[in-house]
């Protein structure tokens, strides 16, 4: 029978906290940048101009249809060789994760926009609004409500995907816990604690978002 001993992890608390800080900070960066890429991808794929549409489609499919682990390694090892672009592990992984997330956000945002009844933009146009005014005032406010659950879901996945940056030696929570596990010879306790830490952050977040959704639905 295995003897659990979580007490031993206490001596690594600063290591864990440090890693957790990197993980949370990293998530904020890749969610914000990912949403920006997502907006660009969505508006590109809805553009009147063929070139923009094709460009957006290429971006979305390349990043959506290849594994994120491969992208991380590619950005860090292949880009310097092929394009001469040197990046720190942090920049490379932030960029890869933002683009990867952005490709999924693009589809969520595009789907939200096209789900709004055509009559809404016709009513805006009939009042004399330009297409961009209609988008900003009429379509987006309604579409965002519908996008929130899917965007939240994708952001949760992004939060957990940050664990992959440990392969590029970015000192996130998983990387630091590897250090702790090797040092303490207690991998079971270490990784259990890590799993609990991820869940402890995500579960309250999902509850907050669920409440927000209900409040938004009231005006419908």
């Amino acid at each position: 029978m295995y003897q659990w001993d979580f007490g031993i992890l206490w001596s690594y608390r600063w290591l864990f906290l440090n890693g957790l800080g990197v993980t949370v900070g990293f998530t904020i960066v890749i969610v914000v940048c990912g949403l920006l890429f997502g907006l660009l991808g969505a508006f590109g794929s809805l553009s009147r101009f063929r070139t923009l549409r094709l460009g957006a489609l290429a971006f979305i499919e390349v990043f959506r249809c290849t594994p994120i682990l491969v992208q991380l390694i590619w950005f860090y090892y292949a880009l310097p060789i092929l394009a001469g672009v040197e990046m720190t592990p942090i920049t490379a992984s932030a960029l890869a994760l933002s683009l990867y997330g952005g490709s999924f956000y693009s589809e969520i945002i595009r789907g939200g926009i096209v789900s709004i009844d055509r009559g809404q933009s016709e009513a805006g146009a009939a009042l004399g609004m330009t297409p961009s005014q209609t988008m900003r005032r009429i379509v987006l406010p309604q579409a965002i409500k519908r996008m929130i659950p899917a965007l939240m879901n994708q952001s949760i996945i992004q939060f957990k995907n940050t664990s992959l940056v440990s392969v590029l030696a970015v000192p996130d929570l998983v990387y630091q816990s590897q250090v702790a596990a090797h040092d303490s010879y207690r991998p079971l306790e270490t990784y259990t604690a890590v799993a609990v830490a991820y869940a402890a952050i995500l579960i309250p977040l999902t509850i907050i978002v669920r409440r927000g959704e209900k409040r938004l639905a009231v005006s419908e």
Partner: protein
Amino acid sequence: MSETQKIEIRSLRKSFGSNEVLKNINLDVAKGGVVALIGPSGSGKSTLLRCINLLVVPDGGNVRVGDTRFAFGDGSKLPDVKTLAAFRATTGMVFQHFNLFPHMTTLQNVMEGPVTVRRMAKTNAETLARAQLAKVGLAEKADQYPATLSGGQKQRVAIARALAMEPDVMLFDEATSALDPELVGEVLNVIQQLASEGMTMVIVTHEIAFAREVANRLIFMRDGIVVEEGPARQVIDNPQEAATRAFLSHFHRTGALPPANAVP
């Protein structure tokens, strides 16, 4: 052409793919005139209406509303989005399915055009919007969301929203077709009131008795052409074309308008 015509449409053509929806249409609406467009579904009447405010861009022909004139077809450039938007701001449109903005209150719906398009100060826009809501009998619904209103109330808000832009002409696209029968009267009543105030209007409708009462001209369309047109009463009471007679035989053409006592 005399400038007493508020709307003037010449040789209008429109196809969707290989389907020719409008074939060489001419239409005049006098200032203060009310024209009813009737015809079976697929006759092109809604498309014609949408060509008047260029929600649908014609393939060929000319469209003039007031002093603004557009030419379409070979050699003519499509108007840019700013020109189109400025033009549409001078025409009001009411849709079959209301198309109210569900994320805004009734008052915000009516204020939206003046604030966003005409850059009116919020306080002035609110005064204007409340006046328009009062005019359609819905002053007390200002702070409610559209989802809480009946179909007839929604459509009256939609009319108020269009009127808040102080348009030169009003276009009605089957404004009562999506309503329960007992709610039709309150909407027709508002339209009739607008007609009596001298608003220039084009009305696509299936309410033949209403068209007979309110419109001064009537146009019967089928398969993308104008089959018959003339003074509304004359065409309805004494249609000359066989196709018009066949179409009108499906309707009660005279008699009282649906009661408008639903208006609070």
